């Protein structure tokens, strides 16, 4: 197990490094630079600024400096917001984004599984049809459309929830709904089909033949097996939710990391782009790692320490 974790950790570092490198060179391929919009500044100031942010160095030197900043976890100052460092933006934005993300995941997973299980148990009944109709809608409507609809219906037309910002639990309802509905629908459908399949398995018959109660048969014997496929797609869903937060934070004016990330790209704020990208990718890679561990814990047939021959 320890060996597996070390190996996975090394892989994670390499993955993040590759993402960071790609981002660095792609970013420099983008037309424009953080400073050249400000034509008004005179030549000397411009050169001073470039020197200050090391933009006058050859690209390879910049790259090495940048790697150093990753290694020391200090991404330096923002170019566009001189009073801010990248780290201060991250530490301010991340808790808010994390809050949005965690609530979204929890909402999606819990309600998705519950919906899927009920639909499977009431197979071909009314609950099943309703749940699956909701699921199809949830999958096909993009989150930004849903967000706009929710704001229009529940915040503007009816004053149920505030329309924007992130200052009280009531403010959190609409963005979480907008972001969670898609993943919830995917989880519900997957849970339903996997549950239906699991319920026909022989070991379910064995469990029933033992005289166990239906609740015990479903929770102990069926659910755990039925959730395996759900766990496998959790990583993909998390990546989706993470990118979803960019859009949702923008729509609801939530001051999270996503907002800084999108703004930084628009403004070519190199250090912020790099810092947020590295942070996002490290975070996601770590989440995927947790999902793998969870899968190994759920399914005893998967031996983590045996994987990859190591």
């Amino acid at each position: 197990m320890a060996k597996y974790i070390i190996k996975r950790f090394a892989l994670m570092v390499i993955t993040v490094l590759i993402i960071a490198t790609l981002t660095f060179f792609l970013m420099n391929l983008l037309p424009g630079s953080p400073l050249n919009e400000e034509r008004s500044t005179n030549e000397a100031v411009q050169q001073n600024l470039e020197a200050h942010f090391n933009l006058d160095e050859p690209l390879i030197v910049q790259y090495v400096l940048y790697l150093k900043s990753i290694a020391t976890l200090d991404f330096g100052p923002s170019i566009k917001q001189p009073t801010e460092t990248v780290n201060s933006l991250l530490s301010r934005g991340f808790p808010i984004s994390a809050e949005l993300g965690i609530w979204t995941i929890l909402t999606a997973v819990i309600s998705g599984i519950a919906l899927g299980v009920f639909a499977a148990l009431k197979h071909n009944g009314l609950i099943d049809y309703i749940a699956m109709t909701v699921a199809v809608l949830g999958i096909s409507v993009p989150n930004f459309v849903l967000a706009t609809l929710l704001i229009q219906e529940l915040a503007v037309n009816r004053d149920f929830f505030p329309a924007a910002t992130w200052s009280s639990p009531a403010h959190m309802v609409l963005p979480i709904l907008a972001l969670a509905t898609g993943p919830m629908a995917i989880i519900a459908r997957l849970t339903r089909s996997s549950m239906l399949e699991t319920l026909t398995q022989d070991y379910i018959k064995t469990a029933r033949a033992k005289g166990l109660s239906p609740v015990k048969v479903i929770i102990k014997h069926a659910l755990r097996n039925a959730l395996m496929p759900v766990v496998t797609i959790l990583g993909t869903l998390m990546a989706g939710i993470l990118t979803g937060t960019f859009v949702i934070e923008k729509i609801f004016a939530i001051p999270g990391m996503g907002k800084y990330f999108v703004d930084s790209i628009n403004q070519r704020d190199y250090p912020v782009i790099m810092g947020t990208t590295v942070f996002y990718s490290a975070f996601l890679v770590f989440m995927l790692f947790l999902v793998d561990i969870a899968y190994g814990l759920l399914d005893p047939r998967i031996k983590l320490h045996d994987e990859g021959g190591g």
Partner: protein
Amino acid sequence: MDKILDIKDLHVSFVTYGGEVQAVRGVNLELYKGETLAIVGESGCGKSVTANSIMKLIPSPPGKIKHGSIHFKGKDMTKLSNKEVRKIRGVDISMIFQDPMTALNPTLTIGDQLTEGIKQHRKISAKQANHHAIDMLKLVGIPNPDERMKQYPHQFSGGMRQRIVIAMALICEPELLIADEPTTALDVTIQAQILQLFQKIQRETGVSIILITHDLGIVAKVANRIAVMYAGKVIETGTRQEIFYHPNHPYTQGLLNSVPRLDQKGERLIPIDGTPPDLFAPPEGCPFTARCPKAMEVCSRIYPFQTELSQTHAVECWLQDERAKKYIASS
């Protein structure tokens, strides 16, 4: 001898998109204490459905017990509530299914699966339940039971898993064990070991066994009595001797002719031609008519009455009717 199970005129159907499958159509079966009854018959003749009905394990919908009674120790299982049936499942009656590779939950330890039944039904501590489970594993011949308890199904071979399934079924000391093709998925040497295990357990515990199988070789080895099923009906029952040496129903005769026998080495096997009837619309008369070499006019129109050839031997075929003998003589 005490009769512990008495099935009378059992009808079970499945309602599907295509119509109603009449899987079991008036089955009568009796089982006495300490005996092994084998149910044999071609695939799809209703063996499993009959067995599953006993513990009300028919998936419903689509399945339904439409008619008949299943008396287990005096109580009619068909009339009990689900809760009352659960108190009998795994305690008084246990069941073993065909495929040991899939009968165990892959995500739970053997120990957990062995003890959960007894924990559910008896007021005993986890420790006592573990002791019990280890004793059962010893009984079925699993070495190192203490360590094995913590392992998962995939760490066992097929034969070992079937032993575990048997241990699981026996842990609450049931009076009736229903084994639905318990050895079909195993290779021949393991099959023999498992059958010996059944016999040993029966000697030691006095459990009654219903053994469902395609394999007449197994039947010849372990059954006391045999019920031959065809198209949802029991068409002949008798002791092992009666069925093997005096088979009366043309279908039983055909079945026996289609298996290799030790005393007729080298002879060609004669499989029964044709297929069993469609159970969506079963024929009114004898369902074997289309395949029967001795079929008469009456066969296709009226179902034959049961004839008792001895106290233990009964058959449902028109050939037993007095008039049939005249008919055969005249033709």
